[in-house]
C-alpha cells in the first residue's frame, strides 16, 4: 500500500533527511531515525521556534518510510482552518502519524479531545507518533490535563536554530539542488545583508533561482544578489 496522505497534502519534494542541515541538531536526527527504525522511542515531541526545520523533519520522517511497508500520515495543523478535528479520527489505525504545529490547536476542546483519542489509540497499538510545536510540552496551553500529561510523556527534542556556519551550509545545499553556483563570498554577503532565519534564506534562494533563470546565469555573484535584493539601488 502507498503511504496514505490525508486530503491533498503533499510532502515537499526536497524535504528529506539528506537535505536537512543538521548542524546543532544531530542528536534529534539520531532520535528520529531510531524512532523510524523501531529501535528508539515510539513517540517524539520536536519543538523550536519557526524556521528550525520542524516541518522539514516531519515530512522527511514520512518520506523515509519505505513505500508499502507502513501506513503514514503527515498532518500540518497550520491548515487548521480547513480541517475539523474529525480529520484525526481515522489516523489511529496508521503505523506512523506526524502532526505538525500542535500548539495551533491547543485550548480548542474538540481538537484537544481528538488529539487525546488519537494519542491513546496509537499508544495502545504501539504505533509511531511524532509531533511538533513551537514550545516545550510543559508550556503548551493544553486544557485537558489527560492530554497534557501524555504529551509530556515522550522524548522531547529541542531544535536549535542554525548558526552562521549552518546557514552557509543551508544556502549551499539549496544552491546545489537548484544547479546554482554560490561562492563563499556571496553567501557571507547574504548573511550580512538580509534576514538570517532559515525560512527567509530559503525564500531568498527561491527568488535568486527565478532571477537567475531570467538572466540565464548560474553563478550567483555578489553584484547579482544585490540586483535581486535592492533592484532600485543598483
Amino acid at each position: 500500500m502507498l503511504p496514505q496522505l490525508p486530503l491533498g497534502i503533499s510532502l515537499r519534494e526536497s524535504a528529506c533527511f539528506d537535505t536537512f542541515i543538521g548542524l546543532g541538531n544531530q542528536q534529534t536526527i539520531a532520535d528520529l531515525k531510531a524512532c523510524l527504525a523501531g529501535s528508539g522511542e515510539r513517540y517524539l515531541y520536536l519543538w523550536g521556534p519557526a524556521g528550525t526545520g520542524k516541518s522539514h523533519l516531519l515530512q522527511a520522517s514520512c518520506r523515509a518510510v519505505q513505500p508499502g511497508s507502513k501506513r503514514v500520515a503527515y498532518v500540518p495543523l497550520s491548515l487548521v482552518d480547513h480541517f475539523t478535528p474529525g480529520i484525526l479520527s481515522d489516523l489511529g489505525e496508521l503505523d506512523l502519524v506526524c502532526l505538525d504545529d500542535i500548539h495551533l490547536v491547543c485550548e480548542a476542546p474538540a481538537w484537544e479531545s481528538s488529539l487525546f483519542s488519537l494519542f491513546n489509540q496509537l499508544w495502545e497499538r504501539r504505533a509511531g507518533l511524532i509531533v511538533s510545536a513551537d514550545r516545550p510540552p510543559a508550556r503548551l496551553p493544553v486544557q485537558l490535563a489527560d492530554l497534557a500529561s501524555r504529551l509530556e510523556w515522550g522524548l522531547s527534542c529541542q531544535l536549535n536554530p542554525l548558526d552562521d556556519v549552518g546557514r552557509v551550509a543551508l544556502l549551499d545545499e539549496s544552491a546545489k539542488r537548484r544547479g546554482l553556483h554560490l561562492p563563499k563570498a556571496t553567501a557571507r554577503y547574504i548573511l550580512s545583508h538580509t534576514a538570517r532565519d532559515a525560512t527567509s534564506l530559503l525564500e531568498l534562494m527561491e527568488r535568486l533561482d527565478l532571477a537567475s533563470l531570467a538572466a540565464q546565469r548560474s553563478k550567483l555573484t555578489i553584484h547579482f544578489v544585490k540586483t535581486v535584493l535592492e533592484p532600485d539601488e543598483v
Partner: protein
Amino acid sequence: MDRLEGELSSQQFNTWIRPLHAIEATESIRLLAPNQFVLNWVKNNHLGQINSIINELSRTKPPSVILEIGSRLKEKKSAAPSLSESLHSQIQNRSLTLSDRSEPLPCNLNPDFTFETFVEGKSNQLARAASVQIGENPGTAYNPLFIYGGVGLGKTHLMHAVGNMILLNNPASRVVYLHSEGFVAEMVNALQHNTIEKFKTKYRSVNALLIDDVQFFGGKERSQEEFFHTFNALFESRQQIILTSDRFPKEVKGLEERLKSRFGWGLTVAVEPPDLETRVAILKTKAKQLFNVDLPNEVAFFIGKRVRSNIRELEGALRRIIANAQFTGGQLTPEFAKNALRDMLVAQDKQVTIGNIQKTVAEYFKIRTSDLLSNKRSRTIARPRQIAMALAKELTSHSLPEIGDAFGGRDHTTVLYATRKVAELREGDSRVEEDFGNLFRTLTS
C-alpha cells in the same frame, strides 16, 4: 459525619467513611461497611475517632459502635453467594466459554504493566493492596474496583497489573482492557453497521472488563445506557469490573446517577501524587526497565525534586537524560541532568509567578485576589494569604521582602511568620496539608 469530614482529608473521608451505612438503635449504632477491606481499615484507623465523637455528642450514655459488613439497601442479600446464585454464575460461565471460543477477543493488556514493575509508596499502597487482592480473587473480592486520582499517577498501570495477574493465574480468562472512548467509538461503529448485538455479547461475556477514564462517558447517554447493561450483566455473573477516573464516583460529571452509585458498590481507592522518595524509586525502576540503566541516586534525587506533578512527566525527563547520555557518552551526574533538562526546568520556573500564585490561591478558596492583598484579618482571608505566601517562598526565587511587597506591602517578617505557620499547620491539620498539596500541584503541573 460532619465532624469526621472536618477532621479527615476529603480523600480519606470519601474512601472510608462515606461508603458506610449507619443503623441506629437505642443502645448501639451499627456501621455497615461494604466489604472486609473497608471494615478492617475503618476498625484499625478510624474507630477510635468515631467513638470519641459519639461520646462527645451524646448527652446520656453513649451507644456502642458495632462494625459489620453489609448495606442498608441490600441488607437482605448476604455477602456470601447463595447456592443458586453460584450455580447460576457457573452455568453462565460455562455457556460463555463454550459459545464464544470461536471469536477470540483482543486482550490489549500491556505486559510491562505488572505489580513487579509498579513502585509502591505511601501515595498508592492502598490502591495497590486492593488491586493485588482482586488479581488473586477476581469477581469475588471487591466488585467493581474503582481507582481514582489525577493524571499520570499509575491508575492504568495498576489496572493492567490486575489484568495480567488474572491471566497469569488463569490463562483461559477473557480479560479486556479499553479506554472509555474506545468503548464509545466501538459502540457507535456497531450501531452504524447494525452489529450492536455482537457488540453486546462481546462485552457481556468477558471475565474481567477494565475501563479506563470513565469520566469520558460524561454526557454520552447512549453509551452510558449500554455500559449500564454491560455492568449489570458482568456484576450479576460475578465477573470482575475495574474502572478508573480522575475523581470520586459521585463527583464524575455528566454520569447518570444509577451508574455513579454502581461504581461505588465495590471498593473505591485513590492514588495520590508520589512523594519524593517514591518518585526517586520510580525513576530508578523505570531507568532499569526501559533502558537497562542504573540511575545514580543523586541523579534520581535531582530529577525527583524538580519534576513533581506526575509520573509521565518524570518519565519524559528520564527519557531526555538517557537519550543525551547515550548520544554524547556523558556520565550521568546531577550536572549532566541539569543540562539535559534545562528547557524543561526553565519552562517550569517561568510559569510560577507571585501573581499566578495569588490568582490560583484566591480561586481555590473562592475569595478575591484583592482580599489577599488587603488588610482583612478574618481567618477565611488570612489563612489563604498565609498559604499563598508560603507557596511564593517555595516556588519562586523572590526574596522575602519582595514577597511581602507583592502582598499589599507587608513586612518580610510577616512572610516569614506565614511560612512557619503553614509548615506547622501542614504537620498537624490534614486539611491544610491537602489544600497546600492541591495548590502546589496545580501551580507546578
